[in-house]
């Protein structure tokens, strides 16, 4: 698993976009990601829909790889950490966090995060809040047009790439405008919204082999 990077300057900060759908903010030694939807496949299985378990294992593997690659003191999850209620996969995550106890995990509450705050803290998350500001950047779950610099998730952005032969395919993407940055969903087991969400935005589309800038 090779992590491909694309450095951008945004909000006067140097941010590293990775093709693993997370951002590394070096100045703050912080990893930023969104929409993990932990326990989603287990939730499906509980309701009689057989989704393979590997999908969840793979998500954690990628997260582990990111934590090992960069010098990370803090992880900010901008919402939808846990898909539904506690289940085996959510407990897996508790074990995962125990192995990275020196890293401070912060959750910005998303619409899916309906688990009680106490239970979330029990997993090993250091704090839960509805928004957070680090330096000049505010973190929220749902993108919200405002004057300050804002990083969010929620909509699972993606882009459609059209080939000359009229074929097309869809890729997850970071959407970056003047003052807003929307993260793609971290989990593999999520859909894409390819509608245009922000005016004058640049899309950083993610492929296995790198990041494609689409204006």
């Amino acid at each position, binding site marked *: 698993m090779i992590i491909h990077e694309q450095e951008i300057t945004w909000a006067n900060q140097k941010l590293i976009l990775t093709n693993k759908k997370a951002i590394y903010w070096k100045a703050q030694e912080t990893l930023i990601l969104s929409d993990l939807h932990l326990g989603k496949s287990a939730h499906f299985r509980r309701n009689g829909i*057989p989704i*393979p378990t590997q999908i969840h294992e793979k998500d954690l593997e990628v997260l582990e790889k990111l934590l090992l690659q960069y010098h990370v003191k803090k992880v900010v999850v901008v919402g939808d950490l846990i898909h539904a209620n506690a289940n085996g996969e959510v407990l897996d995550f508790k074990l995962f966090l125990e192995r990275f106890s020196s890293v401070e995990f912060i959750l910005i509450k998303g619409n*899916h995060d309906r688990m009680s705050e106490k239970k979330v803290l029990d997993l090993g998350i250091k704090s839960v809040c509805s928004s957070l500001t680090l330096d000049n950047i505010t973190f929220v779950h749902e993108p919200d047009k405002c004057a300050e610099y804002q990083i969010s998730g929620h909509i699972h952005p993606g882009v459609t790439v059209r080939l000359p032969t009229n074929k097309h395919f869809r890729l997850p993407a970071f959407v970056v405008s003047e003052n807003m940055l929307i993260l793609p969903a971290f989990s593999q087991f999520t859909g894409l919204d390819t509608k245009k969400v922000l005016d004058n935005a640049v899309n950083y589309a993610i492929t296995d082999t790198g990041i494609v800038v689409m204006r």
Partner: protein
Amino acid sequence: MSKFEQTSGYEIVSSWLNEHGRTPFTFQRQAWEKIHNGYSGMVVAPTGFGKTYSVFLGILINYMNRPDTYKKGLKLIWVTPLRSLAKDLARAMQEAIDQIGLDWVVEVRNGDTDVKIKQRQSKEMPDVLLLTPESWHLLLAQKGRDKFFENLKAVVIDEWHELLSSKRGVMVELATAYLKLKLPNLLVWGITATIGNLDEAMEVLIPYHVKKIKIVAKEKKLIDIVSVFPPEVEILPWAGHLGGKLVDEVVPIILNSKSTIVFTNTRSQSEYWYQILLDAYPDFAGQLALHHGSIDMQIRNWIEEALSEGKLRAVVSTSSLDLGVDFKPVDTVIQVGSSKGVARFMQRAGRSGHSPYEVSKIYFVPTHSLELIEVAALKEAVKTNLIEDREPLVLCYDVLVQFLVTIALGGGFRKEELFDVVQSAYSFQWITEEEWDWCISFITVGGKIGKNYEEFHKVVKNEERLYVVEKRRIAMLHRMNLGVIVSDAMVKVKFLGGGYIGMVEEYFITKLKQGDKFILAGRVLELIRIKEMTAYVRASQGKAITPSWLGGRLPLSSNLGGLLRKKLADSKNPTSREKELKFLHPLVASQVDKSHIPSENEFLVEKIKTREGYHLFMYPFEGRLVHEVMSSLMAYRISQLYPISFSMAMNDYGFELFSDKDIELSEEQLKHILRKEDLMKDVTASINAAEMAKRKFRDIAVIAGYVIQNRYGKQQNNKSLQASSGIIFQVLEEHEPNNLLLRQAYTEVFNQQLEEPRLVQAFERINSSKIIYKFAESFTPLSFPIKVDSLRQSLSSEDLGVRIQRMQEQSNRINRKRR
């Protein structure tokens, strides 16, 4: 007089018929006697000749002759493909029973049936129950279901040809097989209209080693086909615009009839015809209705009733009125544009002139002049009774796993016993034990054999070794999602004030902006906002978009394609009786002049150079779907010779490869790219099979229970269980490539999308034909409609008219220059 005719049952029924001035048709008497003698079988008869009575009265006769063999409870299950058929059928059956003087009760059970009635039925079943394949399976999912069927004598599948080549047909096969195992003496009867593969149709329904017989009525429905000719022939025909010109010819046909159905092929075409008919003859207001799948069910029901009662002058419809109850007042049918198949054409014609010896009259309105060839072809097909096959579907694992959960839900099953049931169904006679094990593991542990998903307990094996569903929530989700009809996500369209208009596909409405206007149910509507799957609109006027509904384009059947090739060849020297071909003479002459009219043993390829670039046209007459595959294959094979890229266009007659570079192709090379060798290998290389399989997986995922279907009108509380089939497809491709349902998606691509057998046949035909390779400097009559169709996809309708006119003028100019 035969012994059977002396039985009291026969005497009672035939004297009842006599009282009503009727005598049984031979095929009816035959069916009665065979039922009396314990046969299963299939009745083949045209609409209007009493198909229903042939089997239904047979059961009554048998009951009257042997009342002691019939016990209390459900005796007869009658399955129809349409809910709307059931109500009328039940009424007619009850009437017959009452008049004959029996005490049987006939009832309907389907999605429209009141819950209270269903509960009462579950406690005490009527004697005859009318079901749809879905409500039949729901009955099998009921606790204590085996009690319902204890005294069942017969199962009858009505309109079997409608179900045969669909997954609903597979549902029928499985349910029948289940009951047949529990009740070895159960009689199974099918009723069907004429199709090409009658013997196979019977084998699919009754694959069991029992006494069985096919009974074919000698009576034939007479059909009179009348072409509506345009005022003059266009040499360069293009689809669509003729409608406007021919509407003046259509109005008098409607005025001279009691009641008319105007059939179109797509919903947008029906909206268009509804408009132009009203514009051409404003007095139709209030007497003309529009009927298609996106119109509110209540309005559709009202239209159907009004049509039965003779209150409507005409209804413009899509295939939504192909089937269903008889509309007695309808004496005229108009078909706009190609019907794409012989069977559909005959079925539509049969919607007029219902009583047995009445002639069904159908007018054919071409949307471009070339379609007149099709009339000639259809006339021949009707004369020689050349009707398409309906291919049964096999090894639909998605339907199977759904059925397994259904059976587990209604009291459970034993693995070995149910395997016998499944194997006895036609569709699953080839299932291996390994595949069976996979299906069982799919519903118990989630798919991968040997891999246990701890949280997954859809179906569990209890202490008595029975496979059952224990969780209520899973039972509820399964019942809600049961069935194999998968529909697009639909958005309700409502007026701000509350009035409900109909439904449109979500993908269409989400493309519109606030203030955009569109047409639905014959009205111009302005979009105000979309909220929670409802689009709020206000009435408006002026220019508006007609939604182009997906799936509206039916491909041309192989039968009709073959006949078209023949008639096209004939058009060079038409007989005096073939008015359509004679009418087309100027067009044919122009095609001969510019290029060539292929004979039946020839295959025409045209290379045309225009200002835009280079066009290669081929005319296999195999229908749009096959042409889609063939054109990518041709493009692929040419690009193997030298680097070049193409854009492609196609209609039902042929296809075009277009490039701004010269398409250099010698006769030798042309033969080479049309070779039948390595066909499927090159096809696989030229298409994106994974992408196509992903699309096929959409339905499979819903049927197998991967995706919870968003049922219109039902409260949805499963938001956290929503995942698109596309994501699941990707996940499975990566983590479980041997998943049977995934493999089924690829099989469906090859059998249905690529139509492998038809493609192979087409290439064999082409390879044994003489290849005619012609060059032209302007579009020929055959190529023009294809070119126009490709423009249509990329241009708005206003640009299109101007652009086409320019192309026609250019072509004509070149023509004049040459002369």
